[in-house]
C-alpha cells in the first residue's frame, strides 16, 4: 500500500457530479457520525453522512457499481442537515446527497406514484387544496377508520404501512388559499408590510394554523399581501431528485413575488420547510445567468414567521397562556438549515404562563422522523425516531409541545395518538394567537 500515491483528479465513472470537488473535501474525520439520527439508530457507517459521501465517491471513482444498495443508502438520509452544522471543513453534506440522488435518477428513478403526486398535485397551495375535499368527505363518513381497521388485520408489512398512512392523515379544516384577500390590513397599529407565502402542507393539512399566522401578523402591525397563484416552494421535489421541476417552481414564485419586493419588508411563511427552500432559491438558480440576481433578491427577503415576528414584536403585546409547562421542538429545516433557534424560543418566552422545559439534542436538532415524505417511504426508521422524540417529550414533563413546521407537527401529533401522552401539539403562531385572544385553555384534544 503506497500511502502517498496521488488520488485520481477526476471522475473515472459516469455520475458526473458537478460537486465532485466538494465531495473530495470530506476529510473523513467522523464528526458527523454522532449527530446523524440514522447512524445513531444503526451504528452502521453506511447510514452515516461520511458513509454516504464515501459511497458516492466510490461510484464516481469507479470502485463501486451503482447498485440498489447505493440508492437505498442515499434515500435513507433524512435530509435533516444536522451533519452540515458540525462539519469542520464545511462540506455541504446534505446538498451533496441530494445531488447524488439526482445523479442516479436515470438508472434508479423514483417510484411513479411519488413523481405523479409531486408533478401534478403538490405544485402549489391552491392545487394541493383539491386533495382537501375528498379527504374531508372520507373522514366525515369515517371510511378512513374503517379502512385502517381492516388493513391492520391484513398480515404482512404492506397492510400495516397503508393502515399507518391512513392514520397519519390529518383532519384538516377548510383550505385557506382562496379565502385570503390580496391585502389583509394590519389590525394593530400599522408598521410593516409583508408578503405571505402559503405552503401546500399548511393549506391542506392545517389551514387553521395559517389563519392564526395571518391574524398574528396583522395584530403585530403587518399588512399581509398574499398574491394568488403561488407555486409550491419546491422542497419536496428537490428532496426527491426532481431538480428541474423544483427550479421551475422557484422561477414561478420569484416572478410572482417580484412586483411586491419593493413594497414589502419580507416574504413570510409559517412552514419551516418552505422558508428553508425559499432562502435556497439564490443557490438553486446561481448558475442561471438570467435568474441569479432575481433569485438572490427574492431569497434575501425571505423570513420564517418565527424569525420575522421575533424581529418586529411590539412590546405592548403580551400573549397569555394558562399556567402550563411546554417544550419546543426545533424543525430541522429551521434550526439546522436556517440557524433559526433563538427566535422561536424568545417568542415563546414572551407568553405569560408558559414555563419552557428544553428538549435534549437540540443543537444540532435530532429529527423527529417526519422529514418530508420520509415517514411514508421509510416507516420503520421514522417510527424509531418518533419513539425517541416522544420519550424525550415525556421526560420534559411538558403539557404543550410547540414546533414550527407542518411535517413536525403532524408527526408529533401522530406520536401523541400512538403513545396517548397527555399533551397538545401546537405551532408557535397558534400559541401566540390564542394567547392574544385569551383562549389558550389548551385542553388535550386531537388536532382538526
Amino acid at each position: 500500500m503506497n500511502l502517498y500515491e496521488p488520488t485520481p483528479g477526476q471522475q473515472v465513472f459516469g455520475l458526473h457530479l458537478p460537486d465532485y470537488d466538494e465531495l473530495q473535501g470530506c476529510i473523513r474525520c467522523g464528526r458527523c457520525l454522532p449527530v446523524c439520527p440514522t447512524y445513531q439508530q444503526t451504528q452502521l457507517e453506511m447510514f452515516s453522512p461520511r458513509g454516504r459521501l464515501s459511497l458516492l465517491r466510490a461510484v464516481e471513482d469507479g470502485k463501486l457499481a451503482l447498485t440498489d444498495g447505493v440508492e437505498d443508502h442515499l434515500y435513507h438520509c433524512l435530509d435533516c442537515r444536522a451533519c452540515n452544522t458540525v462539519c469542520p471543513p464545511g462540506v455541504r453534506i446534505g446538498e451533496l446527497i441530494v445531488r447524488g440522488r439526482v445523479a442516479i435518477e436515470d438508472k434508479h428513478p423514483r417510484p411513479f406514484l411519488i413523481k405523479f403526486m409531486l408533478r401534478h398535485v403538490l405544485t402549489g397551495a391552491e392545487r394541493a387544496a383539491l386533495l382537501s375535499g375528498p379527504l374531508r368527505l372520507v373522514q366525515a363518513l369515517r371510511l378512513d377508520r374503517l379502512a385502517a381497521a381492516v388493513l391492520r388485520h391484513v398480515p404482512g408489512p404492506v397492510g400495516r404501512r397503508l393502515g399507518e398512512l391512513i392514520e397519519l392523515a390529518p383532519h384538516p379544516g377548510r383550505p385557506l388559499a382562496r379565502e385570503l384577500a390580496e391585502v389583509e390590513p394590519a389590525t394593530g397599529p400599522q408598521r410593516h408590510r409583508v408578503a405571505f407565502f402559503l405552503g401546500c402542507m399548511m393549506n391542506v393539512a392545517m389551514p387553521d394554523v395559517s389563519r392564526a399566522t395571518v391574524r398574528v401578523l396583522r395584530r403585530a402591525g403587518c399588512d399581509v399581501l398574499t398574491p394568488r397563484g403561488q407555486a409550491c416552494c419546491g422542497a419536496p421535489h428537490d428532496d426527491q431528485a426532481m431538480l428541474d421541476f423544483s427550479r421551475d417552481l422557484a422561477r414561478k414564485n420569484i416572478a410572482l413575488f417580484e412586483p411586491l419586493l419593493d413594497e414589502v419588508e419580507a416574504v413570510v411563511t409559517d412552514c419551516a420547510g418552505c422558508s428553508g427552500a425559499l432562502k435556497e432559491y439564490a443557490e438553486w438558480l446561481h448558475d442561471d445567468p438570467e435568474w441569479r440576481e432575481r433569485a438572490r433578491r427574492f431569497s434575501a427577503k425571505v423570513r420564517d414567521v418565527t424569525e420575522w415576528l421575533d424581529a418586529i414584536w411590539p412590546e405592548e403585546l403580551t400573549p397569555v397562556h394558562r399556567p402550563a409547562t411546554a417544550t419546543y421542538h426545533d424543525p430541522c429545516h429551521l434550526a439546522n438549515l436556517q440557524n433559526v433557534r433563538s427566535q422561536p424560543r424568545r417568542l415563546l418566552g414572551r407568553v405569560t404562563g408558559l414555563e419552557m422545559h428544553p428538549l435534549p439534542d437540540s443543537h444540532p436538532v435530532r429529527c423527529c422522523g417526519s422529514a418530508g415524505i420520509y415517514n411514508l417511504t421509510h416507516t420503520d426508521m421514522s417510527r424509531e425516531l418518533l419513539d425517541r422524540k416522544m420519550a424525550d417529550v415525556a421526560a420534559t414533563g411538558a403539557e404543550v409541545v410547540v414546533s414550527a413546521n407542518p411535517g413536525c407537527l403532524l408527526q408529533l401529533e401522530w406520536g401523541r395518538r400512538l403513545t396517548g401522552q397527555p399533551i397538545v401539539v401546537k405551532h408557535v403562531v397558534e400559541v401566540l394567537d390564542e394567547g392574544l385572544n385569551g383562549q389558550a385553555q389548551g385542553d388535550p384534544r386531537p388536532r382538526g
Partner: protein
Amino acid sequence: MDPRIIKELRDAVGAERVSTAAEDLVAYAYDGTWAEQQPDVVIHPQTTADVAAVLRIADAQRVPVVPRGAATGLAGGALPVAGGICLNLARMNRILDICIPDTLAVVQPGVITLDLQKAVEKHGFFYPPDPASVYQCTIGGNVATNAGGPRCLKYGVTGDYVLGLEVVVPGGRVLRLGGRTIKNVSGYNLMGLFIGSEGTLGVVTEVTVRLIPKPAAQMTALAAFPRLADACEAVGNILQAGVVPLVTELMDRATTRAVEDFKHLGLPTDVDALLLVAVDGDADAVTREIAQVAVILERSGAREVRQARSAQESEALWEGRRNLSPAIQRLARNKLGEDITVPRSKIPEMVARLADISRANDLPIIVYGHIGDGNLHPTILCDRRDAAIMRRVEQAAADILEAAVALGGTLSGEHGIGVFKRDHMLRGVDGNALAYMAGVKALFDPHDILNPGKKLPFD
C-alpha cells in the same frame, strides 16, 4: 475470502451481523486519514462472545482481523491494509455501570468518549482525557491509542484512567486484566501492554475507568509572545511557581492567521506564538492562580496578556482554539497532521527545524500543540491530486519524525503509529526493545492475524 469461512462466521455470530455487501465494504474501507483499503467482510459484534467467536475462527483460518471503533484515527490504525475482517465495535456502546462509591465507570468499547464524560458529570465526576475527536471517538479506540489531548499535562492520558480491561486475544480466549482498584500488583501488568497496542494484541471488549471529582471552576488567560521560545519558557515558569495548568495550548503565527481569517476574533497575528493557559480547581484558587499566571506570562516576555475575569470572558478566550480545526481545514485540500512529542525545553529548536523542513521541501507547515507536555502538531498542507507534491509530503513527514527523535522525542504522542509511521519505528525505538515488542506480539498473536501490518516494522 473463502465462502466457507464467511459461512462459519455467519453461523457463529448470526447472519445479520456479517456483511459482504459491496456498499458495506466501501463504507468500512477508511479511517480519519486519506488512505483506503476494503476489508473482505464486516462483522458487527454485540457481545464479548461474538468477538471471541470471530477471533477463534479467524485464528484457525489465518484471516486478518482489524478492530474498528469510530474510525477517527490519524495514523491508519483501523485500515484493513491486508483485507480480511473489519470488526465494527461501534454497536457495543453501552455504559454498563457508573459506580459512585468506587468512583469508576464500566463501559463497552463503542461508547463515545463525550457520552461517558457527560454521563459521569451528572454525578459530579470527571473523566479528563479529551482527544480532539472527543465528540465522535470511542473509548475502545482511546485505549488502543492511549489517546491524550490538551488536558494531559495536568491529568494524564487515557491509560492513567484505565483500572481494568476485558480483552479477547487471537484464538478467542477472554482475558480479564486489572480490576476495580487503583493499586494492583498481582502478577505482571499485562493490562499495560494492551493500552496503546492499536489493536495488534487483542480486542478490548470492556473498559473500567477511574473517575475524579469534577473541578468547580476554570479560568483562562491568552498571551501573545513575539518570540516562541519565551512562550515555552513561560510554561516552565508557571510550573516552577507551583501552578499546574489545565492546558497550555500553542498556536504559531500561521495557525493564528488561519483562525483569524476564518472567524475574525481580533487575535494578534503579528506574533510568533499565542499561548492559551487555563487553570481549574475550586473557584477561589482558580481566581488566584490565573492572576498569578498572567503575571508570569508578562514577565516571561508576553507583549500582551488577556486575562478572563469571568466564565464568559474565559469562554471568549477559548473561541480561537475552538475554531482551530475548521480554520485549518479550509487552508488546503489535504492535510497530514503529525503528533511528535519532544522534551519541553526542545520545543523552540523543534519549531525552528520545522521551519527548515518546510523550506527544504517547499511545503507549508503550520504548528500548534499542547506545549506543556511537549506534544506538537506540525500539519503539512498539501493536495492529494498532485504526485510531485505528495512525494515531497512523504519526505517532509520523514524529516519531521527524524528531527523529533534526534531531539530526544518520540514519533507519536497520541495518534499512534498505525501504518503511516510504521517504517520509522526502526529509527524511533531502541533496537533491543523492538525485539522484545516483537516477542510480545508473537506471544499473544502467533499467527499475526490481529491488525497485521501495523505498529511494528516487521511483516
